[in-house]
């Protein structure tokens, strides 16, 4: 059964090929259904082996496909273990739902089939990434994910902002990719192979703490690019220029989790580098807080969700940093469901409001869009961390793991609690401004509920967002047990005592409810609060981080490039090439007189040359 897992990758890849090459002929909506069916089949195929792992009838294994670069231990092989199975299920499952949703959302787009080709390509890339059994193949998936992300963000490339956003995402990600690549080089220099199995079993012997720290920090740099952490998170808010399903699929559920997944996969290496762990946890916490603060001030419904995603990714990274890998991955899974739900819900709202994204011009959509309203309610409660929705369980687990470390880590725990408070606040703000209160619609807007292809995925995701959390409660750590084979090589912290865990969870719940209440009373009234102070302006602008990068990095970079273009290129490089050309021309002018056209002068040259050669040989050989 498992030896057919390559079909998982082959199916969406086939879809990508067909839709990109023949898409125009297939047309709408068949291209969309093709993409949906292929990804859905991949999900269906993955179910059985995943259940096998779940029930214990199957074991983690490496499925060899073909030899690629054997000297570096890079075979095309699939590593099928609980971690990759989980990610496969999320990627194909959420991916299939988003394909279905896109059939409705992208209706009427002139490049309809092309869109599904890119989506399929993305799914295939992501599967290559999560199913890789060595770093080389993982890197290929990593780069392909970056490529398809670029294609999808700038899908509406006729809009200059979309083209610029795609470029920005790509370039910022390349900085992270550089870190990943250098980490891979160090790994290869240390181990002589890229194979996960060899690396993870021999790492404690081979790596010194310094080498492990270098590798893990560079890997983390890669993760900050893909998973949008400080300092490389700036591409994600801009990426909202892409179609909303793209935001849901890539920038909420799957691609941004690649960094977290990669760090979880490399958990053994991170265990060897305590300094990296601290760095990662601190950056994760800081990202969670900063992004939450910015999210509070945003007016664009998608921007709120974008910063929210960055914030939630900060939680996951924090979980990895404190060594709670399964908690991080658990939050990754729950987040994939409820954030995809929120994004798709927001897409549905935007769709119904005729492409209006400003929350100040919404309100009162509760009646116009009932299904969207109900499902968004679930998503809102889940991300805010309300019992018993999934966000409550997963966020709580990360916070508990941080609390458990004690000492200075308590500061990080407090940051996490603060971010949770803000999360509840801004999500309630979004929810209230959009669905409750009086309509503040622009004139002529007539909101309508979306077609069933869009609401059905919402419903499915809402169910998942409700129940998924129950898989891993402090009382019954089913999820952690499931993931155990993937983290077998690292030590596990003892779970917290149940009473203490319950107290912490209760505290977090109270904080969340407090945040919701505060926001509810602030926004659920006829007169909206005036938000024009310095804080709001700066927050709306993302605290000018983009400008800072622009001044500190981009402008000096441009100056250097201009200097090269204006001075080095014309004077140095052109000078050399022109000089060579001029020299050749001068030499040719001088030498062409030798080309007299007189056969006899050539013959004379040969004869003289023969004499000189003979004499030279004699002189050198001592023949005289």
């Amino acid at each position, binding site marked *: 059964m498992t030896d057919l897992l390559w079909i998982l990758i082959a199916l969406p890849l086939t879809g990508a090929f067909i839709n990109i090459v023949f898409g125009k002929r297939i047309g709408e909506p068949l291209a969309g259904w093709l993409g949906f069916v292929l990804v859905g089949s991949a999900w269906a195929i993955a179910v059985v082996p995943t259940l096998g792992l779940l029930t214990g009838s199957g074991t983690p294994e490496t499925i060899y496909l073909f030899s690629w670069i054997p000297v570096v231990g890079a075979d095309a092989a699939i590593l099928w273990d609980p971690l990759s199975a989980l990610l496969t299920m999320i990627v194909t499952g959420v991916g299939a739902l988003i394909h279905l949703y896109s059939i409705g959302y992208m209706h009427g787009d002139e490049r309809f089939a092309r869109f599904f080709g890119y989506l399929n390509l993305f799914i295939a890339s992501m599967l290559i990434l999560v199913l890789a059994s060595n770093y080389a193949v993982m890197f290929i998936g990593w780069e392909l994910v970056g490529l398809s992300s670029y294609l999808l963000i700038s899908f509406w490339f006729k809009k200059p902002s979309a083209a610029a956003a795609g470029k920005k995402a790509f370039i910022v990600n390349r900085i992270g990719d550089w870190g990943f690549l250098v980490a891979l080089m160090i790994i290869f220099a240390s181990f002589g192979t890229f194979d996960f199995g060899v690396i993870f079993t021999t790492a404690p012997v081979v790596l010194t703490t310094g080498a492990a720290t270098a590798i893990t920090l560079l890997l983390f740099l890669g993760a900050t690019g893909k998973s949008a952490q400080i300092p490389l998170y700036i591409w994600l808010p801009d990426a909202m220029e892409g179609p909303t399903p793209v935001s849901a699929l890539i920038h909420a559920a799957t691609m941004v989790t690649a960094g977290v997944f990669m760090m979880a996969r490399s958990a053994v290496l991170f265990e060897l580098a305590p300094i990296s762990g601290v760095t990662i946890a601190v950056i994760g916490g800081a990202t969670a807080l900063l992004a939450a603060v910015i999210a509070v001030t945003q007016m664009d419904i998608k921007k709120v969700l974008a910063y929210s995603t960055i914030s939630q990714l900060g939680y996951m990274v924090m979980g990895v940093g404190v060594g709670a890998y399964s908690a991080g991955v658990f939050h990754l899974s729950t987040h994939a469901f409820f954030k995809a739900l929120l994004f798709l819900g927001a897409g549905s709202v935007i769709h119904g409001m005729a492409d209006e994204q400003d929350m100040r011009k919404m309100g009162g959509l509760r009646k116009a869009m009932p299904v969207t309203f109900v499902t968004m309610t679930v998503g809102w409660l889940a991300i805010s961390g309300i019992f018993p929705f999934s966000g409550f369980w997963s966020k709580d687990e990360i916070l508990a793991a941080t609390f458990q470390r004690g000492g200075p880590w308590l500061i990080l725990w407090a940051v996490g609690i603060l971010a949770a408070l803000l999360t509840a606040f801004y999500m309630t703000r979004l929810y209230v401004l959009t669905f409750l209160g009086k309509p503040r619609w622009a004139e002529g807007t007539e909101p309508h509920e979306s077609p069933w292809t869009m609401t059905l995925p919402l419903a499915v995701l809402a169910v998942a967002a409700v129940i998924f959390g129950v898989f891993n409660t402090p009382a019954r750590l089913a999820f952690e047990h499931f993931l155990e084979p993937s983290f077998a090589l690292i030590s596990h912290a003892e779970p917290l005592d149940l009473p203490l865990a319950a107290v912490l969870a209760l505290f977090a719940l109270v904080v969340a409810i407090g945040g919701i209440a505060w926001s509810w009373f602030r926004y659920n009234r006829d007169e909206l609060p005036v938000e024009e102070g310095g804080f709001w302006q700066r927050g709306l602008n993302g605290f000018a981080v983009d400008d800072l990068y622009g001044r500190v990095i981009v402008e000096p970079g441009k100056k250097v490039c201009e200097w090269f273009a204006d001075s080095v290129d014309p004077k140095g490089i052109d000078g050399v090439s022109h000089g060579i050309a001029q020299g050749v021309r001068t030499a040719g002018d001088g030498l062409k007189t030798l080309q007299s056209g007189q056969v006899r002068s050539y013959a*004379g040259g040969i*004869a*003289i040359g*023969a*004499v000189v050669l*003979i*004499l030279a*040989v*004699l002189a050198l050989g001592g*023949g*005289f």
Partner: protein
Amino acid sequence: MGELIVFIIFATVALVSAIGMVLAKNPVYSAIGLLGAMFSIAVLYVLLDAHFVAAVQVIVYAGAVMTLFLFVIMLIGVDNREAYGPAVPAQRIMTAVVSIGLFAAIVLAGRAAWITGSNAFGTPDLNGTIENVSDELFGTWTVVFLSTVMLLTIAALGTIALAYFGTDVPDEEATL
């Protein structure tokens, strides 16, 4: 002693014919000079016990090649136009220096390495009869021999091509 006399006679004939060939104003005389040199060399081959090579020398060179030369001379007319251009003294001096220098250099180079006659004449242990030569030619060098067959075929084809396509040349020039 007899051999030495024969050598001196024919070496002299060869040298004189060669010099005559170079200096004769009329190409026909040059051809006759070359003919003399080749005959002399054929005699020297006999002296060296290379009977078969001597025979080929007479048949191929003195026969076929020289006939060809004379034929071409007849075809394009005895061309004295060379005399029209003024003789350049510097050219002649240069030529003398170079050719004498070359001769000197060869002699100088060969002097130390030259075989000094360990096999005196009159005690030949090598006989260049047809049998001996053909043993070698068709034994060791069969493939090379066959490739010369191809070479001659190609040369014949080339000549035909030159003669055939060469006729269009004036027309081509007219169109240029």
